[in-house]
């Protein structure tokens, strides 16, 4: 994971956990689309905005090679983030891989709101783990899983979740990560009847609701579904609304 910070008082002051920024890839004009990256955390006093991302293709590679002091074109904060309030007394936060990125901001806000936070974070291996100290600081309990057991317990983060749910049921759950993980979270939320918010990813164009390319399938009251916009109606949705089979399975 790469961590990057830039200064934007506007974003730092207005961002909510779960929202994202839409970043123009600099220098290479052959890449037209902005890249959506979650807000990892903000510092309203200094205007500092942090993002954390994995290099997967051309755009993130170019970003990762930028140097301090260079200028970047960022649109945000965008989207509907996590719904949180001071009413939340206990929460479980589940993150998988780079889906962990937006959760730091969330966990901090939940903590500052007075809730008890259990954070369950899953990674491929020890090398993929990041920001542990930050999560330790803001959560009451922190469990790490890795696929190969090189750190924390071996296995999937959803196995840790089920164990936790058997012990106690939180007021609400929040999840961000790959679709297979989200599917299990969705099922467990239903089984244990815990309200659950999940953050989705989809390929984006405008990022502001105008082009309708970032669709995810959302249940309608008549049993059918409609395509909503991840960029504007999400990226965070209530888990029972989302038809994950219709969503892209690529992320």
């Amino acid at each position, binding site marked *: 994971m790469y961590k990057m910070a830039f200064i934007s008082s506007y974003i730092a002051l207005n961002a909510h956990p779960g929202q994202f920024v839409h970043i123009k890839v600099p220098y290479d004009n052959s890449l*037209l689309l902005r890249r959506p990256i979650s807000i990892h955390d903000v510092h309203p006093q200094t205007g500092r905005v942090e993002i954390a991302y994995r290099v997967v293709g051309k755009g993130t590679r170019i970003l990762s090679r930028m140097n301090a002091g260079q200028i970047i074109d960022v649109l945000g904060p965008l989207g509907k983030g996590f719904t949180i309030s001071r009413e939340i007394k206990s929460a479980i936060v589940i993150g998988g891989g780079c889906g962990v990125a937006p959760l730091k901001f969330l966990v901090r806000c939940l903590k500052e709101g007075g809730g008890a936070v259990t954070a369950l974070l899953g990674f491929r291996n020890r090398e993929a783990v990041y920001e542990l100290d930050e999560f330790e600081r803001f959560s009451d309990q922190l469990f790490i899983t890795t696929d190969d057991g090189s750190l924390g317990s071996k296995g999937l983060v959803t196995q840790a979740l089920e164990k936790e749910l058997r012990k106690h049921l939180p007021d609400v759950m929040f999840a961000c990560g790959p679709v297979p993980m989200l599917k299990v979270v969705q099922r467990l939320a239903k089984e244990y009847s815990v309200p659950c918010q999940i953050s989705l990813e989809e390929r984006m164009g405008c990022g502001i609701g105008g082009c309708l390319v970032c669709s995810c399938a959302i249940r309608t009251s008549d049993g059918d579904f409609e395509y909503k916009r991840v960029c504007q109606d999400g990226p965070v949705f209530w888990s029972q609304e989302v038809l994950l089979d219709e969503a892209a399975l690529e992320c």
Partner: protein
Amino acid sequence: MKLHLNVEICGISFKNPVIAASGTFGFGREYARYVDLNMLGGIAVKGLTLSPRKGNPPPRIAETPSGILNSVGLQNPGVDYFIEEELPELLKYDTRIIVNINGNTIDEYCRMVEKLRDVPVHLLELNISCPNVKQGGMAFGTDPNVVYDITRSVKAHARQPVIVKLTPNVTDIKEIAIAAEKGGADGISLINTVLGMAIDAKKRRPVLANVVGGLSGPAIKPIALRMVWEVSQVVSVPIIGMGGITTGEDVVEFLLAGATAVGVGTANLMSPTACIDILNQLEEYMLQNGVRDINELIGGLEVKGGFC
């Protein structure tokens, strides 16, 4: 120097030639936070159909070199919803409204036009060029006889001027444009997207769920310019040119090639303020090149040789 940016299309005056292209600017509302909509020459709203449409499954967008592919598939809330819920919002702004209409059959186009007869929109844009739908769409736009028929039928029902939007996926764009003009089109807009495909080499799968999609953006600008220029040689109705416009100079190129106004599409996805940025650059160009009246540029290309 006082600049004159006003252009006229089918008797309707546009305060400047920059129009947000259909499908890339929602119903305007989505962009109102970023752009003073009053500054735009016009807004072509998202393509409408008679009944609401779900659109295609995701992923609906792929990035290609200097281009994008989309396969939205005309997701829209239907023409009635537009008239009741979206239009009132749009009417608050002082700009020209172009309604992009799509049908599976000629009859559907006509019924939509009927519904729009008494509605205060300025132009109808007959989209016979969508590459992302199974029925109608591009299939209509590739046959000159169908283009003629559909234009004629729609004109018989329309109160507002009718612009026919052409697909570039044809052997001879001139023939299609002539058919539209003969059918009574009051103007022609082009180009819609070029049919294309993107493949993920690692996953061995198409990037788009729909396999193919429509290519837009700077990559297609040379194709669009060529077609606008070809069409301007054979029709006398005004042309709205589009395809890959991202700068003020791009606008100038389309006007020189024969367009009276231009559509800005993909650029809106690159930056929500694109239309305004482009407008500013256009004024800058005029100032630097001593062009007082934008109409001086229209069709102003100096061509010496060339065999086409």
